């Protein structure tokens, strides 16, 4: 039920012209509108970073918390009120670097939230240092002789940790991205979409042209329900980069597994029975 507005549009973002975030934002708004979501029942959560400004430019409830800590806040908001559509929009530094531990463990929890990672393989807000997904050899103001660390592979990690919905998107393939976003939001459980995007200011290697040349859409010949094949697909990141749903399986959610949440309605609407305190007091007599 809509309580007034159905549009998710708001004011002008503060990103660099040509930034991949513009497309991702547009796709997100379109996906939410196409799904008929009520803006007042949508909560967009972010940490800190360029991508993490996304909630500011969407007409919805939002929570811009701490760098790296968007997932704990998002899952707890969903635990508090299962009626909210909770979407995390934030960068790869936030999701996989500062928040790496939360990334692993929230896959295990499987709370029904959607995690859109704006992955430009560079740190934008802090002006161009290596991110967890930066390619080896990338020269930055900190990695002056080139990045020597192995790039983090988010889809591979997510599948290994037990995620039930793992996808990759590209900010330049908008119709495709909208479709993936809609599937991710509708998926019952934790859904990860790692979205490749160019950073026009700081990443001169992984540009729009770089991605455009490499990405290809997974078609109906690919079966995302096969885990071992999905691992192989997730490993494909070089001259050719697959985009689409890489892995998908139905899994019981946190709310379905948790004995308190599985019935009884939204947690925040429940009243504590005053008789409970009296009963526990009597046990101590």
């Amino acid at each position, binding site marked *: 039920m809509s309580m007034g507005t159905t549009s998710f549009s708001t004011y002008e973002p503060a990103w660099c012209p040509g930034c991949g975030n513009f497309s991702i934002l547009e796709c997100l708004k379109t996906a939410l509108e196409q799904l008929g979501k009520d803006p007042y029942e949508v909560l967009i959560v972010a940490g800190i970073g360029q991508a993490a400004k996304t909630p500011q430019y969407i007409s919805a409830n939002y929570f811009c918390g701490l760098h790296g800590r968007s997932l704990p*806040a998002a899952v707890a*908001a969903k635990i508090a009120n299962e009626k909210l559509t909770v979407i995390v929009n934030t960068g790869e530094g936030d999701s996989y670097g500062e928040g790496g531990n939360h990334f692993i463990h929230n896959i295990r929890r499987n709370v029904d939230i959607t995690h859109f990672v704006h992955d430009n393989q560079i740190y934008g807000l802090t002006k161009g240092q290596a991110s967890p997904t930066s390619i080896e050899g990338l020269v930055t103001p900190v990695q002056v002789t080139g990045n020597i660390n192995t790039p983090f592979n988010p889809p591979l990690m997510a599948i290994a940790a037990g995620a039930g919905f793992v996808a990759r998107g590209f900010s330049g393939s908008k119709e495709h991205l909208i479709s993936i976003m809609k599937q991710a939001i509708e998926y019952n459980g934790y859904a990860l979409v790692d979205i490749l995007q160019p950073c026009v200011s700081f990443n001169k290697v992984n540009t729009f042209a770089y991605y455009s040349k490499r990405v290809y859409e997974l078609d109906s010949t690919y079966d995302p329900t096969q885990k071992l094949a999905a691992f192989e697909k997730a490993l494909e990141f070089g001259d050719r980069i697959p985009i689409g749903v890489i892995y998908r399986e139905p899994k019981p959610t946190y709310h379905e597994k948790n004995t308190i949440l599985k019935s009884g309605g939204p947690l925040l609407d429940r009243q*504590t*029975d005053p008789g409970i305190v009296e009963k526990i*007091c009597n046990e*101590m007599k």
Partner: protein
Amino acid sequence: MYMYNLLIGGAAGQGIETTAAVLEKLLKKSGYHVFTVRDFMSRVRGGHNFTLIRFGSEIIQSHSYKLDGIIALNDETVELHKDQIHDNGFILCDSKLATIDPKAIKIDMDAMAQALGNPRVSGSIATGAVLRLFGESADYFEDVLKSFVKESVLDINVKAMTKGYNAVRAHFPKLESDAGDTMILSGFKAMSLGAIAAGLKFYSAYPMSPSTSIMEFLAEKSEEAGIVVEQAEDEIAAVNMAIGASFAGARAMTGTSGGGFSLMVEALGLSGMAEIPLVIADVQRPGPVTGLPTRTEQSDLAFVASASQGEFPRMVIALRHHEDAFYQTIRAFDLAEKYQIPVILLSDQYLADTSATVRPFDLSLITVAQPAATYEGEGEYLRYRYTEDGISQRLIPGKSSNFVTADSDEHDEFGRITEAADVRIRMMDKRMKKLKKLGAELQEPEFLGPQKYDTLLVGWGSTYGPIAEAVKALNEYTPDKFAALVFGDVFPLPTALLLEKSVSAGTIINIEQNATGQLAGLIREYTGIVCTSSILKYDGRQISGEEITDRLVKGV
């Protein structure tokens, strides 16, 4: 003093905990006031652990090392504690112990347990025996045991207790006592119960001694109380979860000790900046870093009062005793919601793990503020609207056709990021303004002792009991000399009563479980009053009433 003091000592894993729990319940049933202190090492097996049970006809507020009896589960206990026992005391132990101490009363508990067919009932034999030694009746054995053991072993445990009871003769006369209607609980249970009474819906934490008991107790009660208890991957997740749940409308809390609190510090600022109610329990243990994991200290006061970068209003409440732990936890939720600030409940291992008999809680006193259900103001709803008292109406996202926002960045009234200088100033002023109203409802410290005094003792938190006992004892020794102020609200620091009471004090002595006198520091900062001298203890063991008395009699 009409009370007895018993020590149960042995290695970790020998069943001290269970024996003490059964015993304190039996003594409570007999009409005593009971006070049980647990001293244990950070290990699962071995080492030396002990529990002190003090019971009698008067309210007991502190532990004591002057013993009437010992239950020694090993020879080490006899060696370590025999000098603390008075001349007429006893040491109850199994025949197999090597001790030749004349106070030893040996019974062959192992053989008796074997004869009953279960070697694990020797604890019940000792419990029965010690009750007889204190002149108690055998009336409540079955009644109490049935809440501790499974029905299949109830009968054998009752038999074991009776066998132990019959194996010895009364050593002390029974004390006459009628404590009336009481309940017995530990500090962590009082806090947990306070949280449940305040309508807690979500508790997230990472296990850390001595705070873990809160999480475990809430988990045990989670189904009947409708609370989601989530064990987080780390303390950073724990506190951010509590903030997320609170933002979304579920009353939330996290708990930890100093090390975990250190990890939560950035999020404390988020609660302050985004004005999201948050209750954090810091159950202190000695630091720095890992320190003494299972022991007690009061060294986090200065830290929690200033933790996190920037400036924002917060409240720190130190818990003084069991009733305080219950009522102040409820108040913490009320203040957090009313002022949309973080409220820190500062407790410590001593209070958390000590159990005591208290009057039944008055559940009619419970009131906790609620977030607004609907927006009823003029014009557009603005989450951070400037107001007279700095408090903006807090709506819950998804509950009305208004947008609810939160930002760790500086933000405008709607909640959008801004760098405008004028907005920054107004928004800082709005948040800080909440302190004015909060200041008016701070609770002054509790004054103990006679109206006429020369020496004023000041303390905070769990030293309340030992200080109260010391003030009473000192005034019997030298009337009209000693009084005390014990703070519960510690930050912001209420100063009115201190300013009034310090006028007639020739000497002011701060008594604290830390090395630097952190309360004295706060007092100096907020009032200019300088404490004359101090009693500071930081060996991980709580100061007792007797220790304070001795030190004051001998001169600090």
